[in-house]
C-alpha cells in the first residue's frame, strides 16, 4: 500500500460545484484533492450534456456543459487541485486524531480534517438493462464492465448495445472468446464509425454475429447462463451464450456514501443552511447531493453553498486562526494567491 495522501480537504466529486469549491477553499489557502468515479472533470455537465447550453449561470446568457467545466478548471488552476479519476470511495472513517480517512478502490488513502461531498446525483454506475431476473446472473455470467479479458476466454459472449463500450469490447474480446454475438436494437450505432465498420467486416468474415433486437429474457440456473431470448424484427430468437455484457449507459446512485452514517432525506444528504455541514462535524455536502428546506438543484445554488461551507471548513482546518473575509477585487492578498497581483 502506498503512503497516505495528507491534505486539507478531500472533495468527493469533480463536477461544477466540486470544482468551484476548490476556488473558494483555495482563497483560504486550503489544499484540495478531488476524487471522482468518472475519467474526467465536469460531472454530469461533461458526461451527460457537454454540448447542451445552460442558460442560468449568472453572467453567462448561454454556456455549454463542457465550456462551463473548462472555465472552472481555468479559474481554479492557481490553486493546483489534484484529481483522482476513475476512483470509487470504498472506505470512510473518523480517526482518533480528528481527521477523516478516505480510501478508494485503487487502494489510495487520504487523510484530511474536512471532507466536502459534492457528488451531485451520486456516482455514475452502469445501468442494469430491464431484463427480468438478470440480478441472479450478475457477477457470475452477467458483467457490466471488463476488468480482465482473460475471464472471457473460450466463452460464448453476448454483447448488447450500440455505443463505444459495446463495439470496443466486441472487437477486443473477439480473438479471446469462443464466439461473439452483438445485439443492438437497430442497424445504426452511436459508436465511432470506424469500430462499426470493423465489426461489420468481422461479421462478413464469419468471426462474429450481429443481430438486430432487444434482450427479453435469460435462461440458465444458479447464475450460470445458457441462452438469451432476443426479440428481433422477425420474431423471438434464442441465442446460446455463457456470458452477457450489457452496455446500457450510466445511471447515478448514491452508492457507498449511504453507509457513512449521514442523515439522509430521500437519498439526499441533510445539511444546515449556515455551513452546509452534515450531522458528522467536519463533513460537508454541497450541490445537488444535499437537502435542506427550500433546496433547489441549481448549479448556482451549489456555488453559493461552496462559499459558505468554506468559512466553516477553514475554522476546522486552521483552528484558532482568524477567518478574514476579503474581496478578490480589492485584496492584494487574494490577488497574490490568484497570481494576478
Amino acid at each position, binding site marked *: 500500500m502506498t503512503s497516505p495522501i495528507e491534505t486539507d480537504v478531500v472533495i468527493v466529486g469533480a463536477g461544477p460545484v466540486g470544482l468551484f469549491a476548490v476556488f473558494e477553499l483555495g482563497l483560504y489557502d486550503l489544499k484540495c484533492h478531488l476524487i471522482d468515479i468518472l475519467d474526467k472533470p465536469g460531472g454530469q455537465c461533461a458526461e*451527460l450534456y457537454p454540448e447542451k447550453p445552460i442558460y442560468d449561470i449568472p453572467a453567462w446568457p448561454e454556456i455549454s456543459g463542457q465550456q462551463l467545466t473548462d472555465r472552472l478548471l481555468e479559474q481554479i488552476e492557481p490553486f493546483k487541485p489534484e484529481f483522482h479519476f476513475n476512483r470509487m470511495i470504498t472506505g470512510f472513517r473518523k480517526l482518533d486524531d480528528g481527521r477523516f480517512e478516505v480510501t478508494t478502490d485503487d487502494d489510495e488513502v487520504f487523510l484530511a480534517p474536512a471532507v466536502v461531498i459534492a457528488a451531485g446525483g451520486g456516482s455514475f454506475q452502469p445501468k442494469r438493462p*430491464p431484463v427480468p431476473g438478470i440480478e441472479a446472473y450478475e457477477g457470475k455470467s452477467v458483467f457490466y464492465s471488463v476488468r480482465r479479458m482473460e475471464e472471457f476466454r473460450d466463452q460464448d459472449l453476448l454483447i448488447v448495445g450500440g455505443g463505444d463500450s459495446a463495439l470496443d469490447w466486441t472487437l477486443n474480446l473477439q480473438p479471446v472468446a469462443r464466439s461473439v454475438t452483438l445485439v*443492438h*436494437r437497430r442497424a445504426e450505432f452511436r459508436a465511432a464509425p470506424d469500430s462499426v465498420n470493423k465489426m461489420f467486416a468481422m461479421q462478413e468474415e464469419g468471426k462474429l454475429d450481429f443481430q438486430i433486437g*432487444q434482450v427479453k429474457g435469460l435462461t440458465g440456473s444458479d447464475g450460470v447462463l445458457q441462452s438469451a431470448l432476443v426479440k428481433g424484427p422477425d420474431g423471438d430468437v434464442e441465442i446460446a451464450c455463457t456470458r452477457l455484457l450489457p452496455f446500457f449507459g450510466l*445511471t447515478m446512485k448514491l452508492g457507498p456514501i449511504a453507509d457513512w452514517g449521514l442523515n439522509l432525506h430521500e437519498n439526499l444528504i441533510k445539511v444546515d443552511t449556515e455551513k452546509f455541514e452534515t450531522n458528522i462535524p467536519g463533513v460537508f455536502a454541497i450541490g445537488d447531493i444535499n437537502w435542506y428546506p427550500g433546496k433547489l438543484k441549481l448549479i448556482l445554488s451549489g456555488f453559493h453553498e461552496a462559499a459558505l461551507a468554506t468559512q466553516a471548513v477553514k475554522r476546522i482546518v486552521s483552528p484558532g486562526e482568524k477567518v478574514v473575509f476579503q474581496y478578490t477585487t480589492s485584496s492584494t492578498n487574494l490577488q497574490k494567491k490568484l497570481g494576478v497581483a
Partner: protein
Amino acid sequence: MTKISIIAFDGTQFDIDAENGSTVMENGIRQSVPGIEAECGGACACATCHVYVDDAWAETVGAPEPMEEDMLDFAYDVRPTSRLSCQIKVTDALDGLVVRVPERQA
C-alpha cells in the same frame, strides 16, 4: 390550449390541456402521470420519459432526431412508434394526441 391524452400502463387516461410549446413530458410530470419519470429533467440525456405514440398519430408527431434515437437505445421494449416525451413539443397540429406509457422506464 391543445388537448392531449397520456395513458398510463394500468390504463388510466390523463386528459390534459397542454400549452403549445410545452413538451408532452412536462405535461405528464405536472399531472403526475405514473411512469413518466424524466430523470434528467428534459435534456434528452436519459430514457425515462419513453412513450409509445398512438399509431394514428405516429406520422403527425414524426420520427425522433438522431440524438433522441441514440437515447432510445437505453429504453425498455422500444417499438416503431417509441419517442421520448421530452422531445415532443405540443402544437395545434397535435390536438387530440394520444400517447401510452410503457410497462417500465429503463
